[in-house]
């Protein structure tokens, strides 16, 4: 694959992950993989190389989208025996396998939402920062289906993402207040929990999260506001945080007569110790058990 194509692919995955969260971006990537396989025209000699080349590129995005990596790794193993068949059978089998992976992911995300619903109670004032599509859906479901009365403090950061959150919550009739994230200190006495999502949980007990999350979590931790992290176990990585390729951009800036080079990272790294409750498809894991729980999903070094 050409470097230019790789850069384009990385950026697209990152953009989707940024707006929808890692699980939804993974679902979209698998759906896109299925559609591209259906459209692909190539000879039998090229098919294996093309499939594996794309799988490799998907596994090495910046940052790595861990649920996607797990599912693509499984796909790579399972498709191998079929490469000796004819091209239509390979196509058919690849689509079947990827559809299975998609179903697995959907089921697990559904389970996390289901488990998470029990943490939304009447009278709660929930802080939400750059929520993933799944956390948004959970809040909407709590209000619309379970008729729970709670308030949400939306920490405005990235407008595209905040806009989706505001639109969804307003439509569901959730009482919400929007504040800039730098004004959080004025609302800390009102909030009683913080909901966050993650791209991945690394082997060295870090959480790769959306930019700005680390500051908010730090402030909540200092003020004893419990931090709830919602993530499927597919987000638990076999690698340390240093291998997660968080995208770094250095760009020249020029404001009036002041020139400098600005370095930005696409995601935050957060210490897992700052998370009070981890909610996965297995249910809620309390603070003291989180490290051990995560350990069982990581491979030995």
């Amino acid at each position: 694959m050409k470097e230019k194509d790789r850069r384009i692919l990385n950026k697209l995955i990152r953009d989707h992950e940024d707006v929808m969260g890692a699980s939804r971006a993974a679902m979209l990537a698998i759906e896109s993989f299925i559609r591209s396989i259906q459209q692909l025209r190539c000879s039998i000699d090229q098919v294996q190389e093309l499939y594996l080349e794309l799988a490799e590129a998907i596994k090495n995005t910046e940052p790595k989208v861990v649920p996607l990596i797990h599912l693509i790794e499984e796909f790579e193993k399972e498709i191998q025996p079929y490469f000796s068949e004819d091209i239509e059978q390979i196509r058919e089998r690849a689509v079947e396998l990827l559809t299975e992976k998609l179903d697995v992911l959907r089921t697990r995300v559904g389970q996390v939402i289901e488990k998470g619903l029990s943490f939304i109670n009447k009278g709660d004032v929930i802080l939400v920062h750059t929520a993933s599509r799944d956390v948004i859906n959970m809040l909407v479901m709590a209000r619309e289906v379970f008729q729970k009365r709670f308030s949400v403090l939306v920490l405005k950061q990235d407008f595209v993402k905040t806009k989706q959150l505001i639109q969804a919550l307003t439509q569901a009739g959730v009482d919400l207040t929007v504040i800039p994230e730098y004004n959080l200190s004025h609302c800390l006495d009102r909030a009683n929990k913080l909901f966050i999502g993650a791209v991945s949980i690394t082997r060295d007990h870090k959480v790769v999260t959306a930019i700005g999350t680390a500051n908010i979590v730090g402030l909540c931790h200092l003020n004893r506001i419990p931090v709830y992290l919602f993530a499927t176990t597919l987000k638990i990585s076999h690698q340390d945080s240093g291998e997660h390729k968080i995208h770094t951009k250095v760009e020249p800036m020029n404001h009036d007569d002041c020139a400098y080079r600005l370095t930005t990272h696409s995601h935050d790294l957060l210490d897992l110790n700052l998370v009070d409750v981890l909610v996965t498809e297995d249910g809620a894991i309390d603070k003291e058990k989180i490290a051990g729980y995560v350990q069982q999903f990581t491979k030995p070094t």
Partner: protein
Amino acid sequence: MENALIPVAVFVAVYVALTFELINKAVAALLGVMILLVLRVVDEHQAVEFIDFETLMLLLGMMSIVAILRRSGFFTILSVKIAELTQGSPLKILVLFSIVTAVLSAFLDNVTTVLIIIPIIIELTSGMGLDPKLYVISQAVISNIGGTATLIGDPPNIIIGSKVGLTFNQFLLNLTLPVIVSFCAALVFVWAVNRQRFRPIDTNLAKLFSVQLLLEKIRQHFLDTRIDRLFLAKGLGCLALAILLFVTQTVTGLTPGVVALLVAMILFTITRVDVEQMLEEIEWSTLLFFAGLFILVGVLEEKGVIEWIARNVFLRVGDNPYVIILVVLWVSGIVSGFLDNIPFTITMIPIVNLMMQTHPIPNNILWWALSLGACLGGNFTMIGASANIVSIGMAKRYGQEISFLEFMKTSVLITLITLVIASGYLMLYLWFSL
């Protein structure tokens, strides 16, 4: 030609100001009118009589309809659907977007069309790692070609239709064929010259994958507002009504200006939009520019300047109707490429009228020559038509700088090809008519 020196000097000064964009075009035209009024070359009552209100009504009506339709989100939905249909194939992007651009330009103004199409086409092509410039230039050129097909598609046609009294159907019947042939020729030319850039992507799995992700991104980016279906239905219903009334103009007796303004008022009433806000979207400066130009050209006509130009320039070409038609077509085409085609058309109408009186040419062929020349000629340079300027401006906003020469590298040959096609069509039309 009595006392013509002052109006001629004022007219030339206004033209220079317009060409070099020294001041706002409406201010330039109205300042010229004011000078004529102050110097008592013309009085206010006479000046008002020179204004063609039919043209202004048509422009105001269409601008209002387009402003409301844009709010409905219809055009955005349409262009996102087209982006999905292309599935990232570079050739399909060119062809499908060009068809939409041409059709929209025929029924809306060209600037609105490129404002809708250019952002999506840049997002799509640059997201795929293609060069968006070629697509931007193509869409600008295609919008000018598509706009040539109807009375309401391009300002020169609006002016010709209103001032001469030609109907919507006459434009459609007489210009659709050369426009379709020109459209196809332009696409074939773009494809043939850049064949390497239009290679299919369905042999590259990674590219197909990226395109799928990109299309989803475009869907999210452009369709993030909820569509009010009732508002959309009202908007489209009224657009259909306007087209129906344009087509049945000979039966109803309603002029295009009356139809456009009537439908706009119905839309304002039934959609209950904030009228003040909508009126802000009307290009008042364009309407004032038109009014000013009508007065300036009216004064020249009254002073006998137009007749002098017609007799000493255009009527010198001889009696051969084929030559007369070709002169009108090519002079209009070349001049429109370098000067604004709106004042040029307004100036040419009385000249063509005189030519028609001296050498009657059947089936309004001379008017079609003026229309084809003025509209297609706008493609010669990036300053030849408003759609070109707006497209280049939008591309720049998206980080794609297109130079004057870069634009001309594609546009000049397309313009020459389309003018040759128009010449062939008009020659054949005349041959069958004689």
